[in-house]
Each structure stands twice: as C-alpha cells, then as structure tokens.
C-alpha cells in the first residue's frame, strides 16, 4: 500500500511539474502490461485478499510469490528501453533475490517485529513461521540469507501502525516516483499528452 502512495505522489508531482513548466505528459506504451495483471492477481490471492490467503496453504505461497515476480522480470526486460525501468528492475531484483535465497519468503527478524508490534515480547515470535498473511517469514538474522536486503527498515504510520520495508522497496518507490515525474515533456515533442 505504501508503495502505491509513491505512485500517487509521483503522478501528482508530475502534474504539478507539467503545470509549472508549461509542459505536457508524454504517453509511454508499456509492453506486456498484462504480465503485471497476472502477477498482481497471483499475489493478491496469496497475500492480499484475506478470504483466499486463508485458504491457500503456506506451502504454495512461495511458488505464487516467486512465480509472479518472475513474470515481472519478463515485464521489465520487455520494457528495458523505458527510462527509469532499470531502477524498478533493480528494486524488483533485490526483493526477488532475498526471497529466493530464503525459500520463497521475505525474511523479517524478531527484532524488526518488536518495532512493528511493540506490545508483543520479542521471545514470543516463533522462528520459521509466517508473519500473519504477509510475504514475510520470521527468521533470526543468523538464519537469514542476504539479511541486508530483508524487511529491516521501519516507517511509523500512526501511533499503532508501522511498516517494515526493504532496500528493494525503497528503489521501487523511487523508480515509480521518478518515472511519473519525468513524464512531462515539451508540447512540440511527439506523443505528448495535454492534461
């Protein structure tokens, strides 16, 4: 959800930039966008939509996560000539790498969980279990491969809600923002969109 905020902010920033600089949005055609739809549906069913994520067994979730992210790798490759796609691809690669290195789950440490859920004692987190219905598996740092790329950063949203995220997530947010920010072009250029 927080990453979708980056998309919204990027769009707003791009629109403001277009107004201030008297430029217009340049339409970009993304190849293979349907791959993203399939990828989203797979993951939404596995970790986003409670009625289905309850039914889908944990043993299947890594296949759905990794499979859907492989579709995104193909999408990035098809659109490798689009500006800023390299940054989105790098963020995707970092998340995919750490997920594959840890059995198809994004690792999260008990220490990070104490920041997410301060009311829960650190010793009560069971190593090797899934955190809620997320993509995250609770793993101690010594059991985590590529721990640097795991969900280890905390963003407070409110007094009771926080978000743990990875370096890959930061790059994805920056890439989405930057892509939309860079859309305004001079009206004389081909394929621009007056908004």
């Amino acid at each position: 959800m927080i990453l979708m905020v980056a998309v919204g902010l990027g769009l707003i920033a791009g629109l403001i930039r277009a107004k201030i600089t008297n430029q217009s949005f340049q339409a970009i055609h993304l190849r293979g966008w349907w791959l993203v739809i399939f990828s989203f549906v797979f993951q939404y069913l596995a970790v986003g939509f409670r009625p289905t994520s309850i039914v889908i067994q944990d043993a299947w979730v890594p296949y759905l996560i990794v499979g859907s992210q492989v579709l995104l790798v193909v999408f990035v490759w098809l659109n490798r000539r689009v500006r800023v796609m390299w940054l989105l691809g790098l963020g995707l690669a970092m998340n995919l790498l750490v997920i594959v290195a840890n059995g198809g789950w994004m690792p999260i440490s008990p220490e990070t969980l104490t920041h997410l859920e301060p009311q829960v004692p650190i010793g009560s987190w069971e190593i090797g279990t899934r955190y809620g219905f997320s993509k995250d598996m609770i793993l101690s740092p010594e059991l985590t491969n590529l721990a640097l790329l795991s969900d280890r950063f905390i963003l407070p949203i409110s007094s009771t809600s926080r978000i743990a995220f990875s370096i890959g997530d930061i790059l994805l947010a920056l890439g989405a923002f930057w892509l939309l920010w860079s859309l305004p072009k001079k009206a004389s250029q081909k394929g621009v969109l007056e908004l």
Partner: protein
Amino acid sequence: MKHIITFFSDPRKVQLLLLVLTLALFVFAAGAPTATGGTGG
C-alpha cells in the same frame, strides 16, 4: 458521464491511465513491505 466518455475517447489519456495502473500493480507485486498485523504494507 460525458467527461468519462471524453476521457476514454482519447487514446493517449487511456495510455496514461494504463501506465499509472500498471505501475501501481507492479509495485504491489514487486514490493514486499509488511504492516503491523502481518498485512501487506
């Protein structure tokens, strides 16, 4: 209703809408933030 029809009759605006939607779905599927309670962040 007229605004909606006007919007969707412009292929470039539809292309921008498709781009924004694709980006939003992309970051959802590529990202791995998690929120308090173990829901997608």
